[in-house]
């Protein structure tokens, strides 16, 4: 294979990987953020305690989180096919990635929101704030640094998962690493692919940390 071909392939793979990672993380937050909010406010010390709802969400999340991603990927193939029309390729991989991301994200959101000092929530309640106001202007606004750290962790984890999806023809860098490195013993290409993944991870982490620090007003 010509060097320029390898470069083109890696370039396309990087694009696919980024698409998968960002799309799944975004979709993961569309569902995971509200679920995390529900977990926070329905817990016994939340602003609308509902032990039954909390327990149900808690169990569902624990179950989905305990399924290894590779198994989940295969397990939900019929569902993926139903949603996307096929069970392989970049777009199809977004489905299992999102499903894996939601419970993980919900837990991280819960963790971040529960870090918010209960006294501040109480102060807002004493001012007559409604539940929506408290969720948006107190919980989410006050926890934004921690939430952003969570986004960075989520992106990193999904990046790892997306590479795993290469096993079933998921597209992206993982796919290239497995096809060339594992099936064709082209260790060179595999190593380059891994290197690109490492760089991606570093950049994501660096950006995430930078942004969350910039938005944090708790440091003088």
């Amino acid at each position, binding site marked *: 294979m010509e060097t320029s071909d390898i470069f083109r392939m890696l370039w396309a793979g990087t694009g696919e990987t980024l698409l998968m990672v960002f799309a799944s993380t975004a979709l993961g937050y569309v569902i995971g953020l509200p679920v995390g909010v529900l977990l926070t406010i329905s817990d016994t010390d939340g602003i609308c305690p509902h032990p039954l709802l909390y327990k149900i969400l808690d169990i569902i999340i624990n179950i989905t989180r305990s399924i290894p991603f590779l198994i989940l990927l295969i397990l939900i193939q019929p569902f993926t096919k139903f949603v996307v029309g096929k069970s392989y390729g970049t777009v199809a991989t977004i489905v299992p990635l999102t499903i894996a991301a939601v419970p993980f994200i919900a837990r991280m959101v819960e963790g971040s929101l529960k870090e918010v*000092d209960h*006294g*501040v929530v*109480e*102060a*807002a*309640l*004493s*001012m*007559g*704030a*409604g539940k929506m*106001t408290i969720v948006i*202007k*107190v919980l989410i*606004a*006050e926890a*934004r*640094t921690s939430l952003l750290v969570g986004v960075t962790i989520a992106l990193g984890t999904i990046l790892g998962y997306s590479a795993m999806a290469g096993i079933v023809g998921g597209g992206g860098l993982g796919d290239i690493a497995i096809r060339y490195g594992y099936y064709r013993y082209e260790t060179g290409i595999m190593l380059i692919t891994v290197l690109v993944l490492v760089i991606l991870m570093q950049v994501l982490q660096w950006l995430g940390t930078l942004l969350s620090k910039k*938005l*944090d*007003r*708790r*440091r*003088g």
Partner: protein
Amino acid sequence: MSIIQIEHLSKTFDSKENQVHALNDVSLSIEEGEIFGVIGLSGAGKSTLVRCLNLLEVPTSGTVTIGGKNLLELSKEELRRERQSIGMIFQHFNLLMQRNVLDNVCFPMEIAGISKKTARKKALEYLRTVGLEEKAKAYPVQLSGGQKQRVAIARVLASNPGIILCDEATSALDPQTTRTILELLKKINKEYGITIVLITHEMRVVEEICDRVAVLYHGHLEEIGSVQEVFGNPKTRAAKSLILARQSEQLEEEINREVEYGNV
């Protein structure tokens, strides 16, 4: 008619092992415009009592009537509106750490649906009242404890309240700062005619600004009356023990001062 009226108020906390009777059949009334103190040792039920006044804590039995309205009969929406006229300040200030001082003061006005422009203008006025207008753009982390409590007071004024509840508002502050905060509360009480209910475990706070005081002991209302009456001629053991504690505290302060000056 009293602005705050509590009748037969009881609050029991259920835990797995036992029941805690935080308040036991407490009845009292607070008049409009007065500074009313509730004093007691920790665990006496003071915090529970003050939290029952805006239903942050829902009483097990009894009634809380504020401005003629029984809070327990209000709908959620009505209660939210009522809470907007009952301000509260806290021991640990409870400011929004990610908002600057000005936006913190704007928060209650945001809740009340006041336009941003008006809110900012008013917020600056309230900051002027508490003497912190030059800190409008600062973040809470950059302020001292006393300054944070001033911001909290400006924030409470922003909801234009008839009543301010103070939950150990000076307990995290040093004596000097405590005095300035109490002065400020006194000024607010005078200028705006706001009724102030403050709970504390420190007798000097009550001595300094309260008109009347109630002594709580293990959830019971032991004594109530003017500060001179209660502290000058305590009738119950609870009140007497508080005064003894105060005297030993004063003695200790005196000894410390002497030690500092090298007289001992």
